[in-house]
């Protein structure tokens, strides 16, 4: 429980989340989503929920990012909205 580290991670988390939503380039957005997942993973680990952190790392930052990229490659790169 290091409060400062918490705050740091949380502060990074918000821009990552906003970025994942707002970027028009889908590939970059999925990257941002990966960053978000990784930060969440850090947060879980820091909070002592190692199991959750592990899952987040494996699923969120790992496989999800791969799926997203695989999907983006089959679509237009830019989001229309």
């Amino acid at each position, binding site marked *: *429980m290091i409060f400062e580290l918490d705050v740091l991670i949380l502060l990074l988390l918000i821009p990552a989340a906003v970025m994942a939503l707002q970027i028009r380039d889908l590939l970059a957005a999925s990257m941002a989503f990966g960053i978000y997942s990784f930060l969440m993973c850090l947060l879980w680990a820091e909070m*002592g929920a190692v*199991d959750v*952190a*592990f*899952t987040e790392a494996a699923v969120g930052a790992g*496989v999800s990012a*791969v799926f997203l990229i*695989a999907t983006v*490659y089959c679509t237009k790169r830019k989001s229309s909205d």
Partner: protein
Amino acid sequence: MMKKLAGIVVFMVGLLLFYGVSNVDDFPGWGDPDSPANASPLSQYFITDTIKDSEVPNMVTAVLADYRGYDTMFETVVIFIAGIAIFAVVRVSRNNSPVCGGNKDDEPDLIITTTCRLLVPVIQIFALYVLAHGHSSPGGGFQGGVIMGASFILVAVAWDLDTALGRFSEKAAIACAGLGIIIYAGFGLASMFYGEEFLNYGITHKLLPGVESPEMARYYGMLGVEVGVMFTVTSVMFLIYGLLSTRGRMSGGL
């Protein structure tokens, strides 16, 4: 317009959540050991009695796979559904959709394939380790399954999907996904046939060779269901990747 509306909604939800935690007397502090969730008889029971009940040191695993094993079974079903759903929605039978992603004629890169040749077995062993070691350290079927699935995805990325499918075909993937659930629910059924409730693994010590006590039976029962979870997760991860990266054609692709 819609975006602004969404922003307002998000903001309102944020305010609401903040209102929920704002009252210091009401909302337990960060990591407070006396918070209701931590001090409740349930948490105390998990902390004190997990080892007695099932010989599993990692109580997270015990909660997941035993106390609330039924949840986990349906989480596995959720994964299974995801696989089947993406298969059902995306899979096309005829190869008339345009090829996407990289060029199929490319030779796989020698450096990459060599590294992968080295790494894939290691990853798979690590996946099994995560699975088996889940009883005493973080890990378990889901994580192990994802890692195992990633190893197949790595093959598909490094060579191409056809190579990966040669090792783990599409039908085999679906079959393994279903098999995982059958393994999981089968443990439950087995305990039911011995007259206990569904998923009461304790009774399976009558079934498993070399297991004397109900506690050890719970221990091994958990391992068994985690294996089931791993089967499902591995194959579904691979299946999803294959379908997504090829627009459902299940050949060529990235």
